[in-house]
């Protein structure tokens, strides 16, 4: 695998870390979602750059497009959940969601 692939992977890994950091430390539910979005960007980048490196750019584009469609559905569901939660707890703070033990 040529070196450009690894450059893309390196950046994608950085994005992944940013997203994971958000998921692990942020307390605002919407910020948690932004974390998910950043991770999704990392995934799209990994998928497309792999296809690019294999000279299979058309296949990679199909994968990325399918993935983005899935992402939209996921985000819609997640945001609907968040809106419902704020209606109950009147706050976006994820620390309020501690009624259930792990």
């Amino acid at each position, binding site marked *: *695998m040529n070196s450009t*692939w690894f450059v893309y992977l390196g950046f994608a890994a950085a994005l*992944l870390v940013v997203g*994971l950091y958000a*998921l692990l430390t942020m307390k605002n*539910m919407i910020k*948690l979602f932004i974390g*998910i979005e950043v*991770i999704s960007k*990392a*995934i799209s980048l*990994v*998928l497309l750059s*792999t*296809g690019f*490196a*294999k000279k*299979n750019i058309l*296949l990679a584009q199909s*994968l990325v497009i*399918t*993935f983005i469609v*899935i992402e939209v*559905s*996921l985000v819609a*569901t*997640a945001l609907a*959940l*968040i809106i*419902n*939660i704020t209606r*109950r*707890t009147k706050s976006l703070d994820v620390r309020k*969601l501690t*009624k*259930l*033990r*792990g």
Partner: protein
Amino acid sequence: MIFLFIGLPLVVAALLPLIGKVSKKIAPDVLANAVFLGLLVLALTSGRQLIASGPVLLRLDWLGEPVGITAAVDGFSLFMLMAVSLVTLCVGLFSVDYMDHYGAKANYYALLLMMMAGMNGLLLSSDLFNVYVFLEVAAIASYALVAFGLEHDELEASFKYLMLSVISSAAILISIAVIFGMTGGLSFSSVALALRDLEAGPAVGVCAALFIMGFGLKAALIPFHAWLPDAHPSAPASISAILSGLLIKVSGVYALARIFFNVFGLTPALSEIMMWLGAVSIVVAALLALGQRDMKRMLAYSSISQVGYVVLGLGIGTPLGIAGGLFHLLNHAVGKGLLFLNSGSVQMATGTRDLDEMGGLAKRMPVTAATNLVGSLSIAGVPPLAGFWSKLLIIMGLVQARHWPLAVIAVLASVLTLWYYLLIQRKAFFGKLEARWANVKEAPFWMTASTVILALLSIGLGLFFSAVIKTWVQPASDALTGGIRVALASWGF
């Protein structure tokens, strides 16, 4: 024909909102359960003929023109299709009465059908990325179903479940991308072929680890289990049943087994990892189950423990172990589905899930108590019920492969399992009838009917275990022990 498994639920789900406007309860009930029944019949009858001469790859033809949709059918996928249809039908029947007080039945059935379509799509897929797509279909439906009652607990559980699932999806996709990078392909056969020729040990190891993280989270194996003890209790009982009974197995165990056995090929290292993952889940979850007061939470931990048994059995890699693991998968789907449905009956009758508050319900809810006993004993592994045989097979497989410590663990954990199930039975059903439950009524018809069906199945699967194993489990086990050959020979084209 086999494409009906995906197409039928999809089409009916799409039509349900319109139908629901006209008839709020009857039409959705009838339609959805008709679909479930129809698919069960299809799975029981036509399936075996298809694979009589080995795994097949079927192509969909639309008006004579081949469309690019293929379905990979073999003993394993057929076995799972049968299990999915069976448990979903019983859950659907249960929902006829249970979901009355939640409202929005058309919407509920639409989501349930979508979850089934997603699971079936996953089972019939022969392409790595496609497996992921249908996994997400089922997952998104499940997030909404867990939160269906819109109470605080349900929303919180669904939110945490969603968050952790995103991480699992990321792990799975990264692994798929790396595999694509190495092999240039995504279908099971092309990947299996390429991996066999490449000497890519460490890289495949990393991919396998990512798959374990991703699918292990879906299967709620320890240490990836954190979402399940919250999600399953808070969800409506019918959804807990289908999540514990089916979803964690289809999107977790099936996908992992399929990839490890038929695409990667089971190496001794993978086998060890699977066995120990399974063993840890069995023990830790069983211990955690003991300390619970919430009935459904105890059942949820038990699910983690029993899935551990399945993974342990599959991990042994020998025909005996795999057969035991698969049979246990079926028995647990039936048994745990039964137990969760019963918990719904109990919750509907008493308004609580706290075991310390219940007592003596057997006098007022005899059918529920009886079916609960059957389900509990089956999963705990008491002869002649089904769970006994599957656990015995797993333990025999361990002994045969000379894994003595694991065999001992499996047996001891079985005792633990029996203990906490009898705890539930004693605290909720037996003993003195608490005064405030004096006017409790037995659950409505469809709820009891569906649990009776599942209880009879647990007994039947146990009594006729050799026939069941020969016709259903054996072909599935062969498909897995066939290893990469299945992917290369039968599905490659």
